[in-house]
């Protein structure tokens, strides 16, 4: 028998698939075949490695070589050089942005060094479409343990672990389960909220794509604890790969008897169905989610009654998000003491963040609660792209706020983020640099909220529209000081009066930017300037006569013929005609065009 001596792990997450990782896998297999290595080397499609910035990723096991941005054409070289001859393909290795040296072993990459992977423990490690690999990683052993306990004992472990909901507000998970377990009903439901809607957040998707079985197992555990025999996963239709992997996982679990009747020889029965979202952010709110699962408009309703009392079809339902569930098996396997030893006093365990924006290492990371923003952004994230200056980081998506340099050393946990005017949310972290206009950023989020508001309650339906219009007015240079007061009052009233979590948190991006970047608002309103040069209406393109060589390139490319001037004589832009498209700025070879 030939021993498998090497595994090539290829990321099969959505991000890397978008960069042709599927074709890369085919090509690797073909090359192995051609070199007679097919029996010795196994290509495994795994979930996301988290290092999306440099995808597609190929990780060579057992030597932990980490190849980035691998193209299908690179397969031949990897096989002939590395697999066959043991020579690493240097040009594909990750290059440390600081030292500019190649890092071959992922263990030595700063991106991974600071991370503690609990929810992502299997992502990028196992083949998500093979339940056997999950089982080898102690899969379903936690369920086995739980089935030997009473539900109350199991809930107690979750309570003691200190796990809080990873979807937003951070409600203690054990307590939630306890409430649901105590409500009597002929039928109860376990609902997994996989309607990850924050723009720029993709941690749930990655977990579902990389380790779907952990969610299936955790939901079964939850079902046992609260007395439910049915599980429902509400997942965005925009996540076809995650849907497919879940379907495979559920199918395999049924085949192995890990879903269905008398699981693991107990008298516990549990099964899971998928329900699809249809493009409504508000359906991440649990009451809206439940209505959507019932085939209705996804409008939230007032709580109480909470889903734990009257949820899906009026029956007690426990709703947790994907990441929350992903922590559950680990808690039972390693013990609540272990879990609660990680993190801060009130926020236990780890949190997965989706790092995006103007940062070098865009990707998915998991760090202990209490890690500082600085560690996340500058050490794991590799700092700001292009050596620009850090300006702000937006956490919590449209419900969160923008944090500044002053917050960089704040340990990240639920309470600290709220105190700073933001929130954990689902864990999106968008980094912004000096080129980002904070008024525009606030406007961007309001635009999102206006598009996603369900329209049920007046403050959110109309209030956010008015906020957005006011911000637009400010970006146009037509804002007044009264407008700032108006925004302030409206923000507070919307927070105070909106019906659901979406509405109540929707002013956060405005409030936090007004608080931390008030000077930028004032610049827009009083000086009619956009300091970041982002607001079109507030910037003008001007030709610096000292630098202009009169090459006429700008004039030739101006779409509205706003630039005039003779050859070899400095040109002039007619501000009345200029539409601020920026073409001249891009075309000028002498840096003579300045934005003011």
């Amino acid at each position: 028998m030939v021993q498998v001596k090497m595994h090539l792990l290829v990321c099969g997450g959505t991000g890397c698939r978008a960069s042709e990782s599927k074709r890369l896998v085919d090509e690797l297999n073909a090359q192995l075949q051609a070199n007679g290595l097919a029996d010795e080397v196994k290509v495994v499609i795994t979930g996301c490695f988290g290092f999306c910035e440099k995808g597609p990723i190929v990780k060579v096991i057992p030597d932990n070589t980490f190849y980035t941005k691998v193209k299908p054409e690179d397969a031949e070289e990897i096989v002939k050089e590395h697999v066959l001859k043991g020579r690493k393909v240097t040009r594909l290795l990750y290059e440390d942005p600081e030292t500019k040296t190649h890092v071959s072993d992922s263990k030595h990459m700063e991106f991974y060094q600071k991370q503690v992977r609990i929810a992502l423990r299997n992502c990028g490690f196992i083949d998500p479409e093979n339940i056997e690999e999950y089982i080898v990683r102690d899969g379903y052993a936690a369920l086995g343990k739980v089935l030997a306990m009473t539900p109350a004992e199991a809930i107690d472990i979750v309570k003691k672990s200190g796990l809080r909901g990873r979807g937003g507000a951070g409600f203690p998970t054990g307590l939630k389960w306890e409430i649901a377990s105590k409500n009597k009903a002929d039928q109860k439901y376990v609902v997994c909220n996989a309607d990850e809607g924050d723009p720029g957040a993709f941690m749930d998707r990655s977990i579902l794509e990389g380790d779907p079985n952990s969610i299936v197992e955790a939901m079964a555990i939850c079902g046992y604890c609260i007395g439910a025999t049915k599980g429902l996963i509400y997942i965005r239709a925009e996540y076809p790969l995650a849907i497919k992997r879940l379907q495979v996982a559920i199918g395999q679990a049924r085949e192995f008897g890990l879903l269905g009747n008398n699981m693991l020889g107990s008298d516990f029965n549990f099964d899971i169905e998928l329900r699809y979202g249809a493009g409504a952010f508000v359906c991440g709110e649990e009451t809206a989610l439940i209505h959507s699962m019932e085939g209705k408009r996804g409008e939230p309703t007032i709580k109480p009654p909470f889903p734990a009392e009257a949820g899906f079809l009026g029956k007690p339902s426990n709703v947790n998000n994907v990441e929350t569930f992903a922590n559950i098996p680990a808690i039972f396997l390693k013990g609540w003491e272990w879990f609660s030893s990680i993190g801060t006093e009130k926020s236990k365990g780890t949190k997965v963040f989706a790092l995006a924006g103007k940062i070098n290492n865009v990707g998915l990371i998991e760090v202990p609660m209490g890690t500082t923003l600085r560690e996340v952004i500058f050490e794991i994230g590799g700092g700001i792209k292009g050596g620009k200056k850090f300006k702000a980081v937006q956490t919590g998506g449209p419900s969160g706020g923008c944090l500044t340099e002053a917050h960089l050393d704040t340990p990240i946990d639920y309470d600290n983020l709220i105190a700073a005017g933001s929130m954990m949310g689902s864990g999106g972290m968008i980094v912004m640099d000096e080129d980002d206009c904070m008024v525009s950023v606030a406007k961007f989020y309001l635009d999102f909220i206006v598009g996603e508001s369900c329209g049920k309650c007046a403050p959110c339906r109309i209030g956010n529209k008015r906020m957005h219009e006011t911000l637009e007015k400010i970006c146009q240079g037509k804002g007044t000081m009264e407008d700032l007061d108006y925004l302030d009052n409206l923000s507070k009233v919307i927070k105070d009066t909106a019906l659901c979590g979406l509405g109540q948190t929707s002013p956060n991006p405005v409030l936090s930017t007004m608080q931390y970047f008030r000077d930028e608002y004032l610049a827009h309103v009083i000086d009619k300037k956009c300091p970041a040069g982002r607001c079109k209406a507030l910037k003008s393109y001007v030709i610096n006569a000292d630098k202009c060589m009169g090459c006429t390139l700008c004039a030739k490319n101006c779409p509205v013929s706003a630039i005039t001037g003779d050859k070899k004589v400095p040109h002039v832009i007619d501000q009345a005609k200029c539409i601020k498209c920026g073409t001249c700025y891009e075309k000028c070879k002498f840096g003579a065009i300045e934005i003011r």
Partner: protein
Amino acid sequence: METIKLTIDNTPVETEKGTTIYQAAKKVGINIPALCYMNLEHLGIKNCPGACRICVVDVAGRRNLAPSCSTACMEGMVVKTNTPRVLNARKTVMELILSDHPKDCLICPANGQCELQALAATLGVREIHAVENAAVSTYRKDASPSLKRDMDKCIMCRRCETMCNDVQTVGALSAINRGFMAVVSPAFEQDLINSPCTFCGQCVAVCPTGALTEVDDTPKVIRALADPTKTVVVQTAPAVRAALGEEFGLKPGTRVTGKMAAALRRLGFDKVFDTDFAADLTIMEEGTELLTRLSKFLGGDKSVRLPIMTSCCPAWVNFFETYYPEMLDVPSTAKSPQQMFGAIAKTYFADKMKVNRKDLVVVSVMPCLAKKYECQRNEFKVDGNPDVDYAISTRELAHLIKMANIDFNSLPDEDFDQPLGESTGAAVIFGTTGGVIEAAVRTAYEIFTGKKLDKIDFTELRGLEGIRTASIDFNGTMINIGIAHQLGNARKLLDGIRSGMYNFHAIEIMACPGGCIGGAGQPYHHGHSEIISARHNAIYKEDEEKTIRKSHENPYIIKLYEEFLGKPMSEMSHHLLHTHYFDKHKV
């Protein structure tokens, strides 16, 4: 019962568990303003989406403000309903609502009746922060024969949606779109006439603004009254007299029959008649039809379909034509009193007066908006000339009276004209749920048994519960009767019959909550369901005071049969007083 203690605005309150802050505050004289919230307790109808956020209050220890309409009282709760934070929030939200609402109050059909307008005044909104190019949501307008929709004025209280779906189970309206453009509308924003709408008008009855209103037919009536070539007669439905006074500041439940007749005469109607007369006629026809079917049924004729169902209510007729087309042969073929009146007026009465039917204008005053649709149905026209020309609502009549400078409250009581003005107590109770069937029983009993009734009041048929059943002893034959008001209850009743759960000989159905007294053309109840029960009581009081209380004893009805119709269900009756139904099934 478990009670809890809390304080609201420093006032200690003790209330039962499950009470909302809004209700508890009301108990101690604190009226928290609300807009979308509506609780018709007497009718079991509630709309509480928590959407308008006007009723918010400050609950100590809570992060945000609480909607009092849907927040339950908790032990030890400390509630403040009028702090600066609350007042500012309320006013700001109101400003927001107004910022997306047309400012044409002065020419709005809801002017003076608008809950939004009243609340804006209460909250002291004086200006709305101007946002450049502030968007306003606008939508396709629509006028059906009965209702007008101007959804630019919709504030998304969802009351109409609740009435159309949860209460009436008609399903013509739904919330559509999302966010700023969210609104309540028929499918594809098409006209109501293309939807399954029954024109019951309950959406209009509860709309707090001018978004949903009735079609205004008063200009046509004024023109007819002013036309010297026309003889204009008017008929008034029984429920109108029990509610019209409210429009003139009288207490709900005040009966204004005499003043109403006087006012109509002053408005210039040539004859002031009464739909009650036609109600008595309906009993003669429908009662006879019931007895005929019943005798055949009891005689073993399997072809007879029972129960017989009343057909007075035009929204109910629309409802079963739309949703139960396979049951079109079950309801009584008798026309509604409005249409019977029209048919008799334009034949018997026109002949008597020697007026050409084209020159006779029949106006009806109805508590109902579906009557506007009914009188325009083609089968109720002769050569294009309708039996009833215009159906105006109770509200429209009040408006006419006000426009004509008539001081209603100081009018003397006057009588109706004859021959179409005489009625019995049986006809009066047509105005409330259970009344038609009680009137029918009073007559059918005496005809069926040949005996005089000892006790005229069938209290077992009365009440405001949505579905009621009773068995009446017809001298040894038990007659099973079902009664439903609100179309949702009608649906339950019909489905119960279909499934074999019920076994009735006769059922009465009224589309509106409480029957005609709760009709969509009545003065607005603004969410106060005690008004409906006051009207309910007034109707029975009117019946009680009548000397003749059985339809077949109405002397003018007897005379009508003698002079003109022959006997009930005669050929002439069939021609003039009976109709047939159409399959209007649509998706």
